[in-house]
């Protein structure tokens, strides 16, 4: 029996790949929900604990920043392996989607916290003063003067983060989390099934491209400047170039 005969027939590839893609999307979807819910408040907190922030507190800022940095500095494979006891404590298992979500969420939160922090740093500091002078409470300031103004930048970061999570889901796949990564590793890599490998690559590229496209659209939609520029008639643009 040749190795070839072990390959998945082409007509069965969709049945193998699409459920795996769905698993990946569920995994990444759950992770991103947790990442956004935790990462946005955490990023805003880290930003505002820093010198010049709303709740300036250097010791607490340094501590929190260190914790986030540790989460950022471990390669995902090592993070995943090292927190297996914790994962088992939370989910009761260390295989499957549920088990993959825990390390992915931890890595994702650390990543996204930095993204939010960095986006908030890009908001002109005058706006916080404007909000204060207009009688805003700290929460109102964070919501309207910081997060809302940084929204396009945060969405841009969220896109990068989501794509990184798709990548992490493939790594999680290698320890039995399922999903497209699992298919790529077990069929494409371990069984040398090039067709399956190619199919997973095409699907991953298409998924990542779609995420990027949606992200870019959302950024454009939330940036008044970009939105109105896209709407501006061509004639006017030619006029300005002549001047």
């Amino acid at each position, binding site marked *: 029996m040749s190795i070839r005969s072990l390959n998945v027939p082409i007509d069965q590839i969709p049945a193998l790949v699409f459920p795996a893609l769905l698993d990946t999307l569920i995994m990444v979807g759950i992770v991103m929900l947790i990442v956004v819910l935790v990462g946005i408040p955490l990023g805003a907190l880290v930003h505002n604990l820093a010198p010049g922030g709303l709740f300036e507190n250097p010791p607490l800022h340094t501590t929190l920043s260190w914790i986030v940095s540790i989460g950022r500095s471990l390669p995902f494979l090592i993070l995943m392996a090292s927190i297996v006891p914790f994962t088992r404590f939370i989910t009761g298992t260390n295989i499957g989607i549920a088990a993959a979500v825990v390390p992915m969420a931890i890595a994702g939160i650390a990543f996204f916290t930095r993204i939010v922090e960095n986006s908030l740093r890009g908001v002109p500091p005058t706006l916080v003063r404007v909000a204060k002078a207009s*009688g*805003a409470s700290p929460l109102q300031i964070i919501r309207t003067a910081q997060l809302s103004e940084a929204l396009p930048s945060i969405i841009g970061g969220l896109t990068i983060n989501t794509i990184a999570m798709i990548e992490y889901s493939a790594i999680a796949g290698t320890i039995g989390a399922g999903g497209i990564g699992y298919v790529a590793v077990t069929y494409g890599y371990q069984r040398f099934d090039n067709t399956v490998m190619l199919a997973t690559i095409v699907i991953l590229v298409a998924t990542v491209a779609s995420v990027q496209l949606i992200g870019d659209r959302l950024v454009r939609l939330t940036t008044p400047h970009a939105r109105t520029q896209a709407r501006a008639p061509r004639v006017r643009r030619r006029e300005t170039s002549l001047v």
Partner: protein
Amino acid sequence: MISLEQLTKVYGHGDAQTVVLDRLDFSVDAGEIFAVVGPSGAGKSTLAQCVNLLERPTSGSVLVNGENLSQLSEKALRVARRRIGTIFQSDGLYSRRTAAANVALPLEYLGVTAAETRARTAELLDRVGLSNKAGHYPHQLSGGQRQRVGIARALALRPSVLLSDEATSGLDPDSTRSIVALLKELRDDLGLSILFITHEMDTVLQVADSVARLDHGRIVESGRIVELLRDPASGLGRALRPARSHESAAADATEWFVSYTSAAVPTDWLSRLADQLGTTVSLLGASIETVDGATVGHASIGVTGADREHLIAVAHSLGLDARPEPAGESAPAEILEQVA
């Protein structure tokens, strides 16, 4: 009305401490525009932040209509801030909000109902002449229009005091003029006390009733604009209307520098001066204008063979100060001695 009493702000501790504001004392009456000028680093922005209560003074107080606002708790402070409207430099608008939504901010923070907010926002935008720009985003507005939105926002909670923190800096002269006109109109209509902090002397001359010069955290000179302009010894008066270069006098004539010191200067003072001295007086350079309805100015003239003391006396009777060198190059008393 807003007044500062012995307002002091110190940063740092011990040897490293810097006094940024040093016992400032002044008040701005209702219906008055009071300008504070000074070079960068003089403490202007710290002053602004102490006045709109974003910074706590180290000592001294900020009083609005007699009530001391600088010793309040953090929460009470947030409420107190609503009594002072602040106009920031033109980058103070939220880029993702329309003009109307920017004006509505203070109302939104206060928790005003949507219907009421809409009505008040429309009224405010109309007040600053931008009712047709309500749905525009800041990047679609000119610098002057953005600043009008900032003014409307500052007025949203009907404050009695308006603080303008470099509001016209970075605007072109036309926009500055229109913003200045708007501020004066609002001052008259609403009886606002306006504290106008700026580094631009030109704008001060256009907008303010009184002015104080801040230098190294201290008020080094202050007074009513017209009085300062009429006082040849006033450094601030000279800074407000810097002397321009002028032609030099003919070989047989001497150069004299005259400035308006009273409201009674006749418009034909030049020919009267020549008549009374019985000699020729040539005009070498001049800058005369009305500020707040009062004529002020200075001129350099060339006079042939006149007695110094006589010239000074005649000029004085015409409401002019005359001296053989530009004011400010030495103290007035010394000049009089030299002349005598």
